[in-house]
């Protein structure tokens, strides 16, 4: 006999009760989310819409609620007030051929719902490879040349984003390639609409905070629309030097914005000495992989950090001297260890002292 997972059953029941309760209370003015899902800009029917309470659609739990899109790609799901992550998925069986998985997270995740109905902007699903990357089609893609001050830029990274709502920053890109010594690049892609950005960091990293003097730019005519079987030549893709003013401006926005919900403390080594140049990262997912939701500025000589959070909630806190990618020797790394799972619960508007986070050098 198959074992019944009581935890999953309880969650489902809870979701059912909540949804039923909301439905009963708000018959006239239902609270929830609605919108349209697309694939290659066409409405996509039969798409599974999953609502999670945590980012990264934590696979250890069932979705909080699910629905599917209709023939016009429309979906509507009743939800109580709260903060949600919406994931859209569709498995496409193609008569004997390989099964394709289409998937996308709502670009504006997390979605704050404070009563009433919220209509989300339409967004495209994209085909996922085994590693989550975009799956290219034959003879389809984009090419060009990265240029700064009329000179080709070697070893710049060109990033392909499916959505622009995150500002073409962060690790949510579907593909990233490095320009050749003559500045040229070529990226095989599926047909569709993409947003391109290019960056060259002084330390050569694929990801991380841009420093003054790094090169940065987005394609002047974003989005790029690619047709089946065509490689689009962009020509010269201009990037410019990051200046102190633009960097400061960027740090006032998004993940770096100043808020009144704050975690603070000190980064120290195992001997208790302050460590400079370390960032604190806040995740909503206990695995602390993927994209952090908030990032502090790097610590100074006193090792102090302030991690400004957009909202109260439960966060998992890590610390590292660089952004993104696997750990490399010479990096500082650590986690907030007052609790074994590195978790901190904070209320909106609260300021919490984490005391210290011990970081160690990785060799």
């Amino acid at each position: 006999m198959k074992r019944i997972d009581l935890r999953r059953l309880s969650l489902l029941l809870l979701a059912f009760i909540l949804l039923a309760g909301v439905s009963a209370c708000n018959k006239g003015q239902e609270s929830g989310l609605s919108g349209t899902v697309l694939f290659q800009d066409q409405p996509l029917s039969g798409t599974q819409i999953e609502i999670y309470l945590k980012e990264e659609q934590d696979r250890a739990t069932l979705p909080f609620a699910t629905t599917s899109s209709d023939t016009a790609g429309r979906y509507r799901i009743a939800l109580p007030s709260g903060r949600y992550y919406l994931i859209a998925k569709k498995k496409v069986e193609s008569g004997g051929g390989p099964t394709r998985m289409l998937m996308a997270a709502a670009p504006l995740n997390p979605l704050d719902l404070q009563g009433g109905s919220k209509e989300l902007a339409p967004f495209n699903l994209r085909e996922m490879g085994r590693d989550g990357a975009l799956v290219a089609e034959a003879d389809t893609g984009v090419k060009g040349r990265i240029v700064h001050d009329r000179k080709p830029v070697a070893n710049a990274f060109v990033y392909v984003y499916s959505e622009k709502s995150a500002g073409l920053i962060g690790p949510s890109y579907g593909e990233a390639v490095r320009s050749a010594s003559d500045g040229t690049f070529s990226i095989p892609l599926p047909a569709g609409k993409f947003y391109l950005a290019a960056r060259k960091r002084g330390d050569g990293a694929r990801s991380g905070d841009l420093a003054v003097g790094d090169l940065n730019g987005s394609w002047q005519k974003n989005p790029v629309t690619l047709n089946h079987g065509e490689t689009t030549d962009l020509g010269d893709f201009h990037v410019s030097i990051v200046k102190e003013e633009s960097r400061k401006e960027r740090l006032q926005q998004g993940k770096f914005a100043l808020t009144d919900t704050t975690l603070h403390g000190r980064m120290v080594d195992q001997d208790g000495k302050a460590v400079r140049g370390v960032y604190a990262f806040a995740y909503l997912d206990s695995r602390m992989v993927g994209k952090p939701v908030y990032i502090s500025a790097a610590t100074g000589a006193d090792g102090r950090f302030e991690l400004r959070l957009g909202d109260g909630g439960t966060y998992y806190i890590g610390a590292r001297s660089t952004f993104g990618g696997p750990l490399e020797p010479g990096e500082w790394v650590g986690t907030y260890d007052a609790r074994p799972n590195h978790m901190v619960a904070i209320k909106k508007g609260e300021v919490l002292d984490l005391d210290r986070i011990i970081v160690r050098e990785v060799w």
Partner: protein
Amino acid sequence: MKKIFILAILLLGAAPALGLTITRDTTWQGEREIREEVRVESGATLTIRPGSKIIFHSGHLEIAGRLIAEDADFRGSGWGGILLKGCDNSTIIRNCSIAGAKTGLFIGGGAPRIEGTTLQNNEVGIELKQQSTATLKDCRISGNRKVGLFIKDESSPHVSGCSISKNGKYGVYIYRSRPAGFTGNTLSENDTALMISNAGSDPRIQGNIFSKNKIAILVDRAARPLLTENFLRDNQTGVRLYRRADAAIDGNRFERNHEALSIAYSSYPRIHYNDFVGNRRAVFLEFQSSNWEKSNGSTVRESEAESRGAFGQSSGHAADAEARRRPDAELNGTIDARHNWWGEEGNRELNRIGTSGNPSFIHDGRDAPTFVDGGKEWPLDRVNFTPWQSAPLRRAKESL
């Protein structure tokens, strides 16, 4: 007119700089104090004349164009060092001294030439990234607190004739890179003179001298270098192979080391045509078992790979290439150490005990038949030392 221009430059040089972007060709001479970032833009050349002394109170010198520095002294305390970003081989730092920086010289891409230059008392002496093909020749890299020379990010520099000594953690650290040449260098009195780490690091290390280091060469995490014609003497450990380090060790001389060769955790090297002379022990095996590897290797490697999230926690990612064994490595319970010269004493002993004996200079499964892991006993591998050479091969040179 030219003299007046040079005089003007010299006068300008006397004043402290407060952040500077150089957009056209500029010459520095004499003493100059820097307090913020100085950037030389692409297309511009900064020439620093012999005898110049550049003192950094903070900031750094960033070169996106070209730097020509000769017999100059760059120093400070905790400054950001010199950053060469994509500089081609017309950038030359020759007979200079760079001291007191976080990273003395950062080379991001390009192919600059660094010759006869001393890097000392920095946290990191030189760091190469972004597939740099720089040339480092006759440099002295000494007393840097963490790493003397850090080669990362698929860089492939030529490193020759350098003296690398007394660096804190590592004299040279090669991480996922393959230097185009690493030869004729002397590495002495480092904690670990040369670290070669991770899959993708398979350089040819040839004709170098390693002396008085705690560990002369450490090969770790599936790196597979060729170590050839090196002279290793008076080290605590000559070569340590650790965690699936299937190196080729060919034609080296191991002399007066406490332990010439240490092999641990599923490393299966090929050890041929080396001279082992006067070492307290020639080969030492620990936690090394073909049986263990066949039973657990792939599972352990998977879990090792999985535990590499951004913060060292479980990431749930699939095993990566570095966790996989070289497909042609044989798992037959032996380490291949044929055709070596084991020294006069070793030779006499081998002639006495024969091919089935247990040489005193090798510690292997003949001495400790098993080890315990996970509550189970595993057979310790044995070293296959037959046939052996009857005279020294002398392929490694004692001096450069």
